[in-house]
């Protein structure tokens, strides 16, 4: 407990920004253990809204919060505790909204009287540490990626990798897979993709925010995974794209559904978002993995917000929806700068329509 408190102090003072995410889990433990204490500390005015959950979406909500404060007067207090904690807290009604990378199941949504809608999308990318290999020089398929993480392929010069990378001199190094040790929406997205791409992975390992990894080492947060891969020759890990981009990590190309190799970037994420079948997804729980669009990056996901449909205080619920309405209207440039993909306009319109289900909430349409 003492160490958690210490990490929180470091975090608040911002003394060590590079370590933020790594330290989050510690702080999150403390906060998750004391939800009412942590969030009930300051009695909020009507225009102060509280949210908790996804660490993936935390940077964009933070940036939107700062920008929206001057524009709308609504100030946001967002706690990046992790998607699971975000779901727990909105079910317990200790926050005004929860944020989760994994969509909540339809029956759980209705039994807890929650409305779910997506806000932005982002990509997850594999990163490697192979001396002499440039970013996006290595080409992989989902099938092979799963075999690398399951330990089935244990050497980088394996014929299966060589076949995908003719002309590339692959080193005779052991494959050292690195995964997230903390429960994470990123892991959920990544393992969902591996399950979709490799039936063996689906039957033996599966997909969840934390799983029983067949091989490799775990590290905490995107920073932890990136640092461990950097320290380990032959290492392979997965991080959110915004993180890989900011830190110039060695990413790989992946094969899209059409059979072409695609590099991870804003463009290939947008193609995946455009190709998704939004209309037939209940509660907007759309499948953005391995979509059919040409040049679409295969590991893309949306991040979701959960709001109560029977809010205790309709004025606060209106403020929450008003905040995301502002984000949809004015937040796209901020999102793009941070490598998040804004929702397509048609999806934004149907999200706005769904807001009528929140009792008593008023949002300017």
């Amino acid at each position, binding site marked *: 407990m*003492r*160490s*958690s408190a*210490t*990490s929180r102090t*470091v975090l608040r003072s911002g003394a060590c920004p590079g*370590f933020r995410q*790594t*330290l989050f*889990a*510690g702080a*999150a*433990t403390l906060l*998750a*253990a004391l939800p009412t204490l942590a969030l009930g500390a300051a009695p909020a005015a009507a225009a102060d809204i509280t949210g908790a959950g996804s660490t993936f979406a935390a940077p964009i909500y933070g940036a939107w919060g700062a920008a929206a404060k001057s524009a709308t007067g609504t100030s946001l207090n967002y706690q990046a*505790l*992790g*998607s*699971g*904690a975000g*779901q*727990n807290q909105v*079910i*317990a009604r200790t926050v005004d909204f929860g944020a989760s990378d994994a969509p909540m199941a339809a029956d759980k949504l209705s039994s807890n009287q929650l409305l779910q809608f997506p806000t932005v999308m982002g990509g997850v990318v594999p990163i490697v540490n192979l001396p002499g290999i440039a970013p996006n020089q290595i080409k992989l398929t989902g099938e092979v990626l799963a075999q690398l993480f399951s330990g089935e392929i244990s050497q980088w010069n394996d014929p299966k990798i060589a076949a995908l990378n003719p002309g590339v001199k692959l080193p005779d190094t*052991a*494959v*050292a897979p*690195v995964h997230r*040790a*903390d*429960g*994470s929406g990123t892991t959920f997205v990544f393992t969902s993709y591996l399950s979709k791409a490799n039936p063996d992975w689906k039957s033996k*390992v*599966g*997909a*969840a*925010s*934390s*799983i*029983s*990894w067949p091989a*490799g*080492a*775990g*590290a*905490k947060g995107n920073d*932890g995974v990136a*640092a*461990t891969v950097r*320290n*380990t*020759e*032959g*290492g392979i890990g997965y991080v959110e794209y915004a993180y890989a981009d900011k830190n110039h990590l060695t990413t790989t190309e992946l094969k899209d559904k059409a059979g072409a190799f695609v590099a991870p970037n804003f463009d290939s994420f947008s193609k995946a978002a455009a190709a998704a079948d939004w209309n037939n997804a209940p509660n907007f729980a759309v499948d953005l993995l391995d979509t059919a669009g040409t040049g679409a990056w295969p590991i893309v996901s949306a991040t979701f917000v959960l709001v109560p449909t029977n809010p205790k205080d309709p004025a606060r619920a209106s403020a929450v929806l008003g905040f995301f309405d502002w984000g949809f209207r004015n937040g796209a440039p901020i999102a793009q700068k941070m490598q998040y993909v804004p929702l397509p306009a048609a999806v934004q319109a149907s999200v706005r329509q769904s807001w009528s289900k929140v009792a008593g909430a008023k949002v300017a349409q």
Partner: protein
Amino acid sequence: MSQSVRTATWPAAASAGGARPSGFGDPLFGLLVRLCGLLVLLLIGGIMLVMAFGGREAFSTFGLGFLWSPAWNPVTNRFGALAPVYGTIVTAVIGLLIAVPFAFGVAFCLTEMAPRWLAGPLGTAVELLAAVPSIIFGMWGFFVIVPAMARHVQPLLRHSLGQLPLLHTLFSGPPFGTGLLTAGLILAVMITPFVAAVMRDVFNSMPAVLKESAYGLGSTRWEVMRLVVLPWSRQAVIGGIMLGLGRALGETMAVTFVIGNTNRISASLFSPGNTIASLIALEFPESAAGSLKLSSLLALGLILMLISFVTLFCSRLLLRRGA
């Protein structure tokens, strides 16, 4: 401890107040102090109850098999305590194996070898080391020790001792740098000051006449330490070691950084593992309320508390007998 505080407080209070206070001041204060004492008991009992209550679903689902099942699979909802318990005990034992000789050397140097002008600052430095927050050890371990283990220690051990048939498995696996040995090493650095401080106090409390007699008979410093000081203070030293063990068992933040966080049991010292404390810290935020996983984490918390209690109890027992 409580005994000495009490005897110290009463005369001071009496002399400071001059005349004995009348009325209910004394009983009120007495009641207040007793309540404080009781509150500690209530807290401990309450925490245990919450852990046991929260973990009841895990115990009722998996039965006692929870204790020795190596599975930890959130996808299939099968949980067992063996892998984290194994990691907890192995890292603590590695930590002790390194820390005890080191701490003994520190205490020996402080009490027998160092001149007075050096012993003072050195003793303070040991105490300062004990005050370093564990997160600092974690970051130091992650940025300094882990790369060193991956690039130098593991390849070296692999190409030397690793060539021997039985030792081969101890050093196998990809060179992550994280793992049981690294975690044990960090723990050793963290608990050394505690163990050394206890040892120094015990060695210092040794009646001088015993040591002087041995020196008078012509013993060397080492002979005095081995044949007189150690046998005399053996149990208190063991008690101090157990205190260090208690700290090693519960350490969370520093271990989380360097252990590799994988729920697998492997014979290799370099394979990533997990401890109970670090597993709870990592998985807690992503466990849904009312889920079997959350219940299993609370049950693990109970197991860790019980292991720590047994360790502390043993250390108290040995310390009392030694005193």
